[in-house]
Structure formats: C-alpha cells, structure tokens
C-alpha cells in the first residue's frame, strides 16, 4: 500500500490491518501523553481545495500525535486562487519535501492524478474527491461498526461478516456512500442503500449492494444492525440545485430518522452519521442525541484511523508495506 486512493483498492487483509492498527492507535490516545515519536522528521501536507473543517483537523491531529510536521494548504488565499494548477502546486510541495500529501479536491480523480503523475514522490491520501471516494471516512465507519457489533470480546483481527448496514439518503452525491459500499462489502457486511430514485446514481445496480426506495420497509423487514444517515443538502431541493426532491418536509417524512423509526431498529443497532448533520432534515434531534447514536465517537475514531493510515503508509522503509515483519521471525536487533 503506497497510497490510499479508494476503498475499492483494499482487500480484506489490508482493511483488517488498518482497523487493527487503528485499534492500537486508539489505545495510545487514552493516555495522558498522547504524542508518539513514530513519524518524527516526516512532513505531511494537508492540501485542501475544498472547504473542510473536521477532516482537515482530524488529519492534522493524527499527524501531530505521531510527531510528523504538518503543513496546511488551503486553496483559499493561496496561489491556487491566482490560477495555479494542481501540477504546479504539487511540484512546489514536492520541492518542500512532503512525505505524504493529504488531498481533498472537488474533482473526482484528482488524488489519482497526483499519485500517478510523478509530480510528488510522497504517499497520497485521498481525503475526499468530488463524488468519488472518501476512504478514511469509510474506514472510520467500519472501525466504529466493528467496535460495537463484531464482539463480544476483543475484535482485533475480525471483519464485519454477517452484519447488515443500511445507508440512507443522498447516495447520488455521496463519496461517503461509495467508499462505504466497497469497504463494507469487502469486509463481509451486507449493504442496503435507501434513497429516493432521484438520489441514486445511474448504474447503482452494479454496486455490491441492494437498493430500496422505502426506509420503513427496510427497517421492518431487514432489521439492520446499523443505520448510516447521509447528509442531505437543502439546496438540492430547488430546481436550480437539480430539483432532486420536492420539499425538505417530504424528504424528512419518507427518509428522515426520527424517534419512531429509531424504535423500529433492533435493540443492538447503532446510528452513524458522517457529519455535519442537518438536524430536523435527515436526522431528528431525538435520534441524533440518543444513546444509540455513535456520531461523536466517529469523530474520535477518525483520529485513530488516520493515525493508522499515516503509520502504515509512512513508517516503513522502501519495502512494500504489505510485507509486514513476521512476528515470529528471529530476533535480529533485540
């Protein structure tokens, strides 16, 4: 694993390894001294062409907890607003010695271009590109799901086999949904997408997931172990925004998670949301603040998962990361 561009690139072993490493990282974050010297001397550049608070802060926290130097670069107020291309920006960062570039871009595929163009020699981590992928979000969702649902006992080494996850909302515009469908499927979970027909992409039938237009039916018949609510942007309602649904109230009635629908879920089921939430639109305050909502925990898990990704991409030498030092190897340097 040299880059993290898409959850579709990960096999089960890769994904479980990231989740296990995240577990080790999370354990260190309960300590009084949270900082580890692991990536001392490495430089991580946060290259954000799109507004983001939580993802950028999460990556910045993760890198700093591992003692890497962090350079934040946002398009606003930079030479990008003067018309600099991605290529020239990347070459500049390469000249500054970036070991990893965390990129968020409004164009799907920009991280892939950056990783394969040779403009930068560092590892490229996709922090959200267009309507394509947001792999660390899916990984932190999977980590959260595994922690709550893969038990009992120590979940290290386990996948999500047998779990049923409903992903509800604006699947069409959601890179979170795309990343999750691939990752959760790889980890053995069954995914049900629930959305109005207008908010499902063309070709969704080819995804490794089932599709339903009716949330109440899914809750009653499928008994999902977890429900993931996607953010719906109000501006998509108007005809200028695409006219994807007639009114927020209608959306909420048919696809919003409220106390009644929460009660339909099995006892053990948990509620996820990638944030930021529109309270009263896709999720009611009752549901968002219920004890089954793990939305705040997702944020904390995000730091651990990003620490794990940075560790796995940056800590090792030139050898491929997948060839982990076997633990039963002879002591070479005890």
């Amino acid at each position, binding site marked *: 694993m040299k880059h993290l561009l898409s959850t579709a690139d990960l096999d089960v072993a890769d994904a479980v390894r990231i989740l296990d490493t995240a577990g080790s990282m999370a354990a260190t974050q309960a300590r009084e001294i949270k900082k*580890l010297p*692991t990536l001392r001397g490495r430089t991580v550049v946060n290259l954000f062409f799109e507004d983001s608070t939580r993802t950028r802060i999460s990556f910045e926290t993760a890198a700093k907890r591992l003692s890497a130097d962090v350079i934040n670069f946002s398009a606003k107020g930079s030479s990008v607003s003067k018309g600099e291309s991605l290529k020239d920006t990347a070459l500049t960062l390469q000249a500054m010695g970036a070991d990893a570039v965390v990129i968020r871009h409004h164009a799907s595929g920009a991280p892939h271009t950056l990783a394969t163009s040779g403009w930068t020699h560092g590892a490229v981590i996709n922090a959200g590109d267009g309507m394509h992928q947001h792999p660390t979000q899916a990984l932190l969702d999977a980590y959260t799901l595994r922690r709550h649902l893969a038990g009992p006992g120590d979940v290290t080494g386990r996948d999500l086999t047998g779990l049923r996850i409903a992903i509800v909302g604006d699947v069409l515009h959601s890179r979170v949904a795309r990343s999750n469908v691939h990752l959760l499927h790889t980890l053995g979970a069954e995914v049900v997408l629930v959305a109005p027909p207008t908010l499902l992409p063309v070709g969704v039938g080819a995804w490794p997931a089932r599709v339903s237009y009716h949330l109440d039916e899914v809750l009653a018949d499928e008994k999902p172990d977890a429900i993931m609510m996607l953010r719906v942007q109000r501006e998509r309602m108007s005809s200028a925004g695409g006219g994807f649904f007639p009114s927020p109230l209608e959306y909420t009635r048919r696809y919003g998670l409220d106390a009644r629908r929460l009660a339909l879920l099995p006892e053990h089921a948990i509620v996820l949301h990638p944030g930021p939430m529109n309270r009263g639109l896709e999720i009611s305050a009752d549901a968002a603040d219920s004890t089954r909502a793990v939305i705040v925990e997702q944020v904390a898990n995000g730091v651990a998962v990003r620490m794990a990704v940075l*560790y796995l991409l940056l800590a090792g030498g030139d*050898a491929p*990361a997948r060839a*982990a030092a076997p633990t039963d190897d002879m*002591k*070479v340097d*005890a």
Partner: protein
Amino acid sequence: MSTGTPTPETRVDDDANVVLGAPEINRALTRIAHEILERNKGGSDVVLLGIPTRGLPLARRLAERLIAVEPGLDPALLVGSLDVTMYRDDLAHQPTRTIGATDIPGGGLDGKVVVLVDDVLYSGRTIRAALDAISDLGRPRAVQLAALVDRGHRELPIRADYVGKNLPTSTSERVRVLLEESDGRDAVLIDGGTR
C-alpha cells in the same frame, strides 16, 4: 550480573543448535524471579513489563514464580505488556511493523520498580525504545532489565540486571527463542554463521 546455567550438550535440531532446553529455561526463570525479589526486597512495588512478542509470556512466567514465593502479590497488578514499535529508531529501514499490544497494569507505573522482560538482548535498541515508551506512560522509581539470553554486540550503553544465559555469538548467527505459548516448545537455538 548472573552467570547463567551450565551449557547443555549441543545437539542438532531443525538444523540448528539448541543451546538451552526446557529445563534450563525453567531454572533460569526461577533464578531470575528470586533475584528480582532479593534485589527489590520483595515484590510489592514490582511491575513486570513483557516486550511483545516473546517477552510477554516470559514476564507472565516470572510473575507466576514471584507469586509462588510471595502469595500476597496481585497478578493483575504485577504483569503487563509494553509494545515499543512506535518508539523504534529503525522503522524507516524495515517493512512496516505490526503494532503490538500495550497493557499497563491498573496500578500504573508511577513510583513502581519496572522490570522490562525480553527474550534476547542484542543491540540494546529495543530497550532504548522501551525506556522512551515508559517515560510517556509514567515515572517509575527504577527500571530494571531481565533478558533470557544476552548475546552481546551492544550498540548502546545498556546492560541487563538479570540474565538467563550469556551467549557469546557472532553477528552472522541468529538466536531464536521458542516458547511453549507461541511455538509449542521451550528452546533457545542458534543457527547460521560458522561455528
């Protein structure tokens, strides 16, 4: 510094020379356990921290022996594990290592006598990393080191307080420790090199 057990007959086993068998390992651990109690005037402040992978079962065995001598000791507070992967200085020169578990006993490390337990003491770099890891976790009154085998070739000013066996080796040889818990049998082997 201990002198270790007498060298047993060397015999060929899995194309390697067994330098310590199960009885010798057993005796060495029992002796180390007594030395720990003697040096620290009892086991009440002692915390044994095993360095994964093979330091951990060794630390557990030492804990059993300490409790056999001093039945009042609480096993839950006596033994833990300390993973040093994220403190190593050679991370960039090797394939990415899998991170092991760190499990500090409930009593914490402040004011305690920490005995680090590892299977083989070689360059000393693992122990250097362990000392850094400990300083992030608390402030022990003292840190001591127990190793089943000391094979020499130190690269840092570090020495063991308790040694199962001093094993002069050449750098071209490899020392392997097999333990019942992970490998199905107890043995220390040397292979490779020209003996």
